[in-house]
Every structure is written in C-alpha cells, then in structure tokens.
C-alpha cells in the first residue's frame, strides 16, 4: 500500500478483496480428489478405476432401463441370416425384384402389380400408327412397319479364306515389286555409257532400230563415196600434173570415140 502511495496510484484506495468465489469445501477435498485421480489413472481394472473416479457412479446399477421386445434376441440370428440372403440376392441380381421384396415387405410385394394409373382408351393402338406416320415423314427412316426393320442380307466378301489369302498375297507382291523398282540402281550414262545405251536400246522398237541402221549406212556410204572421189581426184591431179594439156585432150577425144563404137555393135567385150 505504501508503494502504491509512493507511485501516486489510485489503486491504494481499493480494497484487495477477492471477487471470485470457490465452491464450498473445495480445498478440503482437493488433496483426496487428486490422489484418487492418480490412482484411477494407474488402475488396470475398470471397477477399481470407477471407484476412484466416482464412488457414486460405481454404486449405480448398470442394468439398462430400456425395454427390448420379447423374444428379440431369440429370433435375431435367423432374421439376420434372412436379410443377408436377401442382400446377397440383391448383389447377385437374382430375382431381385421378387424375392427381396417378399422378404422385406410382403405388403409392398402384394401391391407391386396394382397400377393405380389409367390411360386414355385406345391409346396404345393409336400409338403404333402415329409413330409409323411420323417415321414415314422422316426421310431418314425406312421402316416398313413399326418395330420391324428389314434386315439387309449381308454377304461378306471376306468370308472365304482363300479369297483373303489371295488378296493378302497380291498386296504383298505389289509392295515387293514396288520396292524392287524403287530401289533398282540407276545407270549413269556418264559413268557407264555402254550399259546405259544397252538399257535404253532395249526399250526402242526393233523396226526403228533397223530403219536407223539403214539410214546410218546410206549416210556413211555417201560420205565414203564422196570421200573416195575426193581422194581419186587428188591422186589424178598429182599424176597428171606433168602431162601436157594437149595430150590429155587428145586422150579424152580418143576415149569418147571408142565409147561410141562400142555402143553401136554392143559386143566388144562379150
């Protein structure tokens, strides 16, 4: 209080009373309570544990106040097995609708086929024709009668085994031949002119070749003739360069005369 006064605090005027309350007898029983809790914590037996925790509860009867229908436990096993069977039938989807509902609820089972709803008179008879008319209007539909679809006979072209094998062989052959042709080595006319010529000559028609050869021969003969004539003229000129021109004229005149005599009787050399 002196300290508060020295500090000049207003708290020095307040009485330091405790405003909180404590349950009556709290401290008297606190030590025993804590000790009992320690014992309960260390207890192995449930009864001992409860006796330390709550002597009151340990004295309350554990008999349940709830009632159980008579014979409940006697029939429980059979009821459970029946339900398991019904459950397994549901899982297996074996006569689910009939058996399970009969087991679970005979009342609902009896009501199953009783339909409370009604339909207009002749509804189902008109329904068919109505739908057929509707389908006839639709260009995509081609049903002859409602509910009947004409089955087109399908003849499989691949049914026969030999046919399939032949097709497969043909396809393989095409692939192989194509591969060979594609991969055939090309003959270079520069590197191997003879092979190139031989290869390409084979492609040319035989008549064309003969014609070419003939023409080639004519050309070469003409050339040879022209060439040999030119040589002869050069030789004659060389031989006659020393012979006087008068003697050549005289020779030519004698040759002409001689030729004309031969033509007349036509038998000079026979």
């Amino acid at each position, binding site marked *: 209080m002196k300290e508060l006064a020295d500090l000049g605090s207003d708290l020095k005027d307040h009485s330091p009373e405790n405003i909180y309350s404590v349950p009556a007898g709290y401290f008297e029983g606190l030590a025993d309570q804590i000790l009992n*809790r320690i014992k*309960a*914590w260390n207890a*192995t037996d*449930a*009864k001992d*544990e*409860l006796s330390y*925790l*709550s002597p*009151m*509860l340990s004295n*309350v*009867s*554990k*008999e*349940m*106040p*709830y*009632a*159980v*229908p008579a014979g*409940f*436990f006697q029939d*429980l*096993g059979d*009821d*459970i*097995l029946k*339900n*398991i069977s019904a*459950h397994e039938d549901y899982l297996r989807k074996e006569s689910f609708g009939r058996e399970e509902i009969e087991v679970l609820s005979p009342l609902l089972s009896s009501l199953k086929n009783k339909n409370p709803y009604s339909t207009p008179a002749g509804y189902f008879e008109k329904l068919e024709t109505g739908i057929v008319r509707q389908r006839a209007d639709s260009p995509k539909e081609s049903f002859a009668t409602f509910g009947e679809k004409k089955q087109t006979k399908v003849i499989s072209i691949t049914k026969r085994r030999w046919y399939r094998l032949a097709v497969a062989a043909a396809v393989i052959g095409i692939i192989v031949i194509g591969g060979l042709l594609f991969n055939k080595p090309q003959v270079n006319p520069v590197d191997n002119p003879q092979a190139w010529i031989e290869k390409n000559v084979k492609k040319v028609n035989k008549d064309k070749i003969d014609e070419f050869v003939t023409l080639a021969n004519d050309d070469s003969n003409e050339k040879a003739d022209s060439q040999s004539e030119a040589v002869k003229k050069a030789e004659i000129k060389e031989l006659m360069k020393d012979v006087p021109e008068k003697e050549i004229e005289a020779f030519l005149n004698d040759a002409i005369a001689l030729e004309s005599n031969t033509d007349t009787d036509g038998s000079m050399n026979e």
Partner: protein
Amino acid sequence: MALTTLSDSELLVEFRNPVTKEKAFTSIIKKYQEKLYWHLRRMVVDHDDANDVLQNVMIRIWNGLENFREDSQLYTWLYRVATNECLTFLEQQKKRAAVSLSDVESGLENKIKADRDFDGNKLEWKLQLGIQQLPEKQRIVFQLRYYDEMPYEEMSRVLETSEGALKASYHHAVKKIEDYIRNH
C-alpha cells in the same frame, strides 16, 4: 462339438468352411448379439434404430469376416465395425434432420424421455440423460469402459485413439456425468 462352445479362433475356422459357414455365423451372432445391441442402443436410444444398425453391422461382419486378419481379438473387430456403423448412422440422422449437432443430441434426449418406462427421478434414467450430454466419441469411450469394461488397449484399437487420450476422455466423462446427476 456344438459351435456355441468354440473359441473365437475356432469359430473363424468354421466360418471359413463353406459347409459350416452359416452355423458358425449364427454362433457368433448368439455370442455377441447382446453386447453389440446394447452398445448400439445406448448410442441411438431407440430400439428400431438400434435394430437397423445391428442388421447392417451383421451384414458387414458376414462380408468381412472372411478377410479378418486376426491381428486383434474378434470382439474388438466386431465392436469396431459396430461403432463405425453407429457413427455413420448418427451422421446420416444429422444430415436428414439438417440441423446442428446439438439439436440432434437433444433429439436423443427427447427419445429417452419419450420411452414408456422413463422415470426422471430414477438414477439409471438420469445416468442415460447425463450420457447424452457427452460428445459422440466421448460417449462411446464412456460406454465401452463403463458398461463393457473394455481395456484401454483394446479400446484404442476399436477407436484408433491413443490409450492416454482415451483415459483422459473417460475421466472427464465420468466427472461430467456425475455433475449432471448431482444437478438434475
């Protein structure tokens, strides 16, 4: 030998034999039906609800027992299946009611009070009402320990919670229920 006298391991062997499967299953039901029923009934209060949940539990047992690995006691596994099924049921109840958790719990309290034998002055009815004040999981812990005296080790396998947490939860639950009874 009558199947009812067989141990859990022997019953499992019989269950896995197609010839004796149904008999073994019936024996298992007879052996544990009341324990499982009351475990469920204490949670859901209403007999019809308890019966529905119990039926579902038994179907799950029938389907799952074949693959039970026996890494825990059979009854531990049965309780685990029942507890999970019960929690699923209560969850579905909440969704159907489309109300908050507290409203569903007051619904269970109302079911207790609606029981034809209910007597608010009797300690055993006050106890039931006190139990319903607990959160779901704490309720299960209390009931397994208080009514079934299940060891914490087994309970931890059932609820997949540590033993220490379960012990603490149980001790708090006892305190709460005691306080409820004293005040009502």
